[in-house]
């Protein structure tokens, strides 16, 4: 019997793309769909997905839980669990457009919810930590249920299929977002499970990722020490958790996080602080080929591994920041570009909303480096 | 110049730090109760005057300082000390003088178990321990040099030492005031009783120093014969093993 | 150039002499052939004294008495400073044996000629005594 993602580790190759409006002006999903579709050859029809930020302004203060269910029984069990931990403002099936090219879809529901105060106060943890724990518990322990996304005012739309078909299925052209990221997947085998597709998310974090991380087991075991339940066995999952751990829990700024996950070589270190970060978080050095786009509700960071084993291109035009595995995927939606460049290994591309700098605490040097690169 | 610290005003680490950083040659510390590692690792000739009950490992690994304690010591007083002098106006706990290589330790009252265990002489260094009261069992276990003197001045009715005295000892001397029960002394130890004061010549300076430190009259110290314990066979385990290339 | 012997690490094993003997007289370093078929003769001596030992071999003196004394010009110094015997010219008068202040030059076993250390000048590598010393006690040094 074929084992499902989570029971077995499946390396994959991929295409990634992102489009962001730095003023926070929202636009629909047609551009990102066109962008990722332009890289059709990089995926094999076994995974595609999108993350969108700013799509639920009417519920901006609620955690938007997108959940896949294998069947209605799983839904009932999971909803009882949700009722127990959340006050749910609104719930509904996620609207989809049936298509010949998409098969085996799970039941997909969304819930706009807030944690029950008595629950997380009792455990002396914050609201976000509470939600993170609930999400990890559902994904690890509730068979037949999988939380596809759990942030505020954002969602992940993903499944098994080519990304353009997945986009059509989820009707993403009907959503308005200021950040879109996308992923086309080329996994090395064919179990075809919707939860295994990208983006992988936790709270507001979403990650799309191209490449395989050879340090997976080291990274995973490091995160497990801090209570993360790794249920999917994909690199992408540990990257999302690594960002969550370093930024939300350890309070590092983005610049420092980049120095951890794509640390310069010892011989290239410029300051003692980088050495310190590397020593302290050596278990989170992401080793092996990757290009990733990590997004959150006020911006995104795109990053290559430190010896740049995967492709990545960025472009700027007015308030738009484009990132993709191939330049063609940017040109297909924006012929006229102010600037196009490929960052070096370990050099982050940082895109931030103009009015929300405080949220993602980036050291000024990182922004300058990204803009002058 | 003398620096005076009141231990109550410091926590454990800040007290050690303040003492280490003090440039004064004499340091007095008041109101001690359980503070460990005082004078630990000191390589200097400073004087330390301590009041209260000090914590474990007083003067451990030190080489040179003089430590005067008005109060009791806990475990490990003078542990692995190389040089210096520790004078305790009170009692001490177990393993005082463990692995001591030099310097001297004067204790007015009793000492605990395993006093002077693994003490050893080295070149011109010969460690010395003088105890006014009694010592616990395993006195001088593994002893490889130096001198231990137990006076038994406080409890005239009891043996000044516990059982298993000198087990595994292979050098050095233990001197006991009075005669000792033979079943307290390890097999390999020779006990000689010296009645005449002339025979006490080698330890007389130590006894005088003890009397001066604690205000004893020498006539009281010398009112009994002394027993000297030394090793019969220095290599008692030399036939224990048979080499085998396996 | 000369061989320097470090008595701190000389084991007195004598391998230097064995390989020396085998390197000369036509056996090209084969110890078995030299010793089983020939009459090997080492060009170096081994001195042992109170648990110390060291090799005794030619110092290749700057102003070598043996060269001055040689009656046929067989003893020569090459441009590397190696004092050696030209076997074609040596007539076996053994004057050199007598004048060497260190007793280094020996008569051949049949007394037909003199033999001495030539620092294995015909070999590309280091002298065989140096390369075969098991403990690095011998070195070839430049100064005289």
């Amino acid at each position, binding site marked *: 019997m074929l084992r499902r993602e989570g029971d077995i580790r499946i390396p994959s190759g991929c295409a990634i793309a992102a489009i962001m409006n730095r003023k926070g002006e929202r636009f629909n999903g047609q551009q990102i769909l066109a962008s990722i579709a332009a890289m059709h050859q990089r995926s094999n029809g076994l995974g595609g997905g999108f993350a969108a930020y700013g799509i639920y302004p009417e519920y901006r203060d609620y955690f938007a839980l997108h959940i896949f269910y294998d069947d209605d029984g799983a839904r009932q069990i999971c909803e009882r669990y949700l009722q127990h931990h959340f006050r749910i403002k609104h719930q509904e099936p996620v609207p989809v457009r049936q298509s010949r090219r998409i098969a085996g879809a799970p039941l997909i529901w969304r819930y706009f919810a807030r944690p029950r105060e008595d629950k997380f106060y009792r455990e002396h943890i914050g609201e976000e930590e509470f939600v993170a724990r609930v999400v990890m518990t559902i994904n690890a322990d509730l068979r037949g249920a999988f939380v596809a996304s759990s942030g505020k005012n954002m969602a992940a739309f993903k499944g098994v299929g080519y990304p353009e078909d997945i986009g059509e299925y989820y009707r993403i052209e009907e959503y308005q977002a200021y950040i879109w990221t996308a992923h086309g997947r080329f996994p090395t085998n064919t179990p075809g499970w919707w939860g295994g597709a990208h983006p992988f998310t936790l709270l507001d974090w979403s990650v799309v990722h191209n*490449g395989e991380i050879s340090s997976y087991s080291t990274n995973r075991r490091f995160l497990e020490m801090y209570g993360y339940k790794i249920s999917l066995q994909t690199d992408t999952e540990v990257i999302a958790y690594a960002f969550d751990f370093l930024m939300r829990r350890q309070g590092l700024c983005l610049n420092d996080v980049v120095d951890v996950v794509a640390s310069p*070589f010892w011989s290239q270190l410029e300051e003692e602080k980088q050495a310190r970060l590397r020593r*302290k978080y050596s278990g989170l050095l992401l080793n092996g080929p990757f290009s990733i786009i990590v997004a959150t509700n006020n911006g995104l960071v795109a990053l290559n591994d430190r010896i740049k084993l995967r492709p990545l291109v960025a472009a700027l035009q007015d308030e738009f920041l484009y990132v993709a595995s191939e330049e063609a995927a940017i040109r297909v939606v924006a012929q006229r570009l102010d600037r196009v460049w490929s960052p070096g290994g370990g050099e982050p591309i940082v895109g931030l909303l103009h009015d929300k700098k405080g949220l993602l605490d980036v050291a000024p040097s990182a922004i300058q480096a990204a803009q002058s690169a | 110049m003398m620096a005076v610290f009141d231990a109550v005003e410091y926590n454990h680490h800040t007290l050690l730090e303040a003492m280490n950083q003090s440039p004064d040659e004499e340091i007095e510390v008041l109101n001690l109760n359980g503070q460990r590692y005082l004078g630990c690792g000191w390589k200097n000739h400073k004087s330390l005057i301590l009041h209260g009950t000090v914590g474990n*490992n007083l003067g451990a690994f030190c*080489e040179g300082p003089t430590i005067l304690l008005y109060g009791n010591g806990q475990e490990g007083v003078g542990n692995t000390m*190389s040089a210096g002098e520790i004078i305790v106006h009170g009692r001490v706990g177990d393993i005082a003088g463990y692995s001591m290589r030099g310097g001297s330790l004067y204790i007015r009252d009793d000492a605990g178990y395993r006093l002077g265990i*693994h003490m050893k002489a080295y070149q011109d260094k010969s460690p010395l321990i003088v105890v006014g009261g009694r010592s616990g069992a395993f006195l001088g276990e593994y002893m490889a040099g130096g001198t231990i003197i137990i006076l038994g001045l406080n409890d005239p009715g009891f043996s000044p030492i516990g059982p298993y005295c000198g087990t595994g000892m292979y050098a050095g001397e233990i001197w006991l005031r009075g005669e000792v029960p033979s079943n307290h002394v390890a097999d390999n130890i020779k006990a000689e009783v010296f009645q005449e004061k002339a025979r006490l010549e080698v330890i007389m300076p130590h006894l005088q120093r003890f009397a001066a430190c604690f205000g004893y009259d020498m006539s009281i110290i010398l009112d009994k014969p002394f027993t000297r314990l030394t090793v019969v066979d220095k290599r008692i385990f030399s036939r224990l093993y048979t080499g085998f290339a396996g | 150039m000369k061989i320097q012997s470090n008595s701190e690490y000389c084991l007195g094993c004598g391998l230097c002499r064995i390989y020396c003997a085998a390197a000369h007289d036509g056996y090209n370093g084969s110890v078995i052939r030299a010793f089983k078929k020939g009459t090997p003769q080492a060009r170096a001596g081994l001195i042992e004294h109170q648990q110390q030992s060291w090799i005794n071999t030619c110092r290749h003196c700057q102003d070598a008495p043996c060269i001055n004394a040689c009656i046929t010009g067989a003893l020569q110094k090459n441009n590397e400073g190696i004092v050696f015997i030209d076997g074609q010219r040596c007539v076996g008068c053994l004057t050199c044996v007598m004048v060497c202040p260190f007793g280094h030059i020996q008569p051949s076993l049949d007394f037909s000629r003199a033999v001495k250390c030539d620092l294995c000048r015909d070999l590309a590598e280091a002298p065989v005594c140096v390369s075969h010393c098991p403990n690095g006690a011998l070195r070839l040094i430049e100064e005289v």
Partner: protein
Amino acid sequence: MSLSMLTPAFTVERNQDRCIGCGVCVKQCGNSVHHKDEDGFMWVIDKNCVGCHRCAVLCPTQALAIKEFPAALRPNSYWSTSSLREIYAQAETGGVLLTGMGNPRPFRSYFDHLLLNASQVTNPSIDPLREPMELGTYLGSQVSSLGEREKPLLKLDMPIMFSAMSYGAVSLNVQKSLARAAREKGTFWNTGEGGLHSDLQEYAASTIVQVASGRFGVNPDYLNQAAAVEIKIGQGAKPGIGGHLPGEKVSADVARTRMIPAWSDAISPAPHHDVYSIEDLAQLIETLKVATNFEKPISVKVAAVHNISAIASGMVRAGADIVAIDGFRGATGAAPMRIRDNIGIPIEIAIAQVDQRMRDEGIRDQASLVAAGGIRNSADVVKILALGADAVYIGTAALIALGCHLCHTCFTGRCNWGIATTEAQLSKRLNPELGAVRAANLLQAWEHEIKEMMGGMGINAVDSLRGNRLMLKGIGLEQHELDLLGITAAGY
């Protein structure tokens, strides 16, 4: 007793066609096996031979072959020849069997049942000759937050250090060789418990000094000049027992280094008498930190025993910055054979268990983990790192690099290779200049091999190998063994 029932262990065969009677063997054998009469007749006493191969290696004509003595006892798969020999020896002497080096018994080597991974297609392998490949490792506690002063660390250019081997157990030339090699290769050597010889003070910055129960040579200078201080609680070859350097080995120089009288026995008690419990260990660790002004990482070395994960966890909580664990294959200059061969557990399982336990308890960052005891080659290093160790200690392998032929008779002090001896005539056989080159060569060779293996895995920093158990698969192991190692079977 007049009759010895022990037949020789080895026989020395001399090929007369090859022997040239040079007598090198006679001079080199410190055990009086080889003899040469005045008339040139050469003869041997087989029973003196320990199988060290010094004569065979130095023989210029390879005329000598050392073989197992052919008088095979009646085959018996339960009562082996060695069982009988051990009993004969004890019946003759009444002694405890004393032996040297590590446990030679045929217990399963888990290293030999682990296979490494390599990249194919889904990620690229890396060529270490052309791309950067980092083996640099820091040992110590990583818990101080970024705002605080960092705790003291040891910086290793490669995750391999030389194990503790004391002067007295080994010759000074061994220590000189290892100290030089360690300094040259950016790593550390360990004094063992016998003090730091004055000739080696120039290598202090590359030195880890040990504090063992005997406290030999321990004073404030000793502690403060080193790079780190290691408390030796136990040793893989002899867990639970102390040490006994017999007086014959305590030469004037050894005595000066150990700070004891010459020619007297040097006893290391079984326990530290100031450590009878875990809170006492915390006290000794802190005493040493105070004595070194909190500037040195404190390592604690223990033998791998049955409840090692609980012990290691306690050690970390007691403040150890480095936890060194010595597996049951670890070697020694002398140990009772029954102790060496029957006590302890394999280092592979110990590291796997301790690493996982420290992670489960959330204290893996508080201390580094050093594996010792039976690391034979660079693949063993890679495997133990992937199981969770930060670095390894090598002892036996280092001695073999210096010439040791594992004859297991270190306890005699008559080591023909100049290694396990303090006799001047024998220890001079190891020229430290050559020894340093050989030891450094070994490190360099392993360094290259580790880089090759890491490159194959697509990893360019040892940080990402540490604890990377996905890079290991078990072959020929039972499920419970796989579970203990925290890995899956090959093909899974």
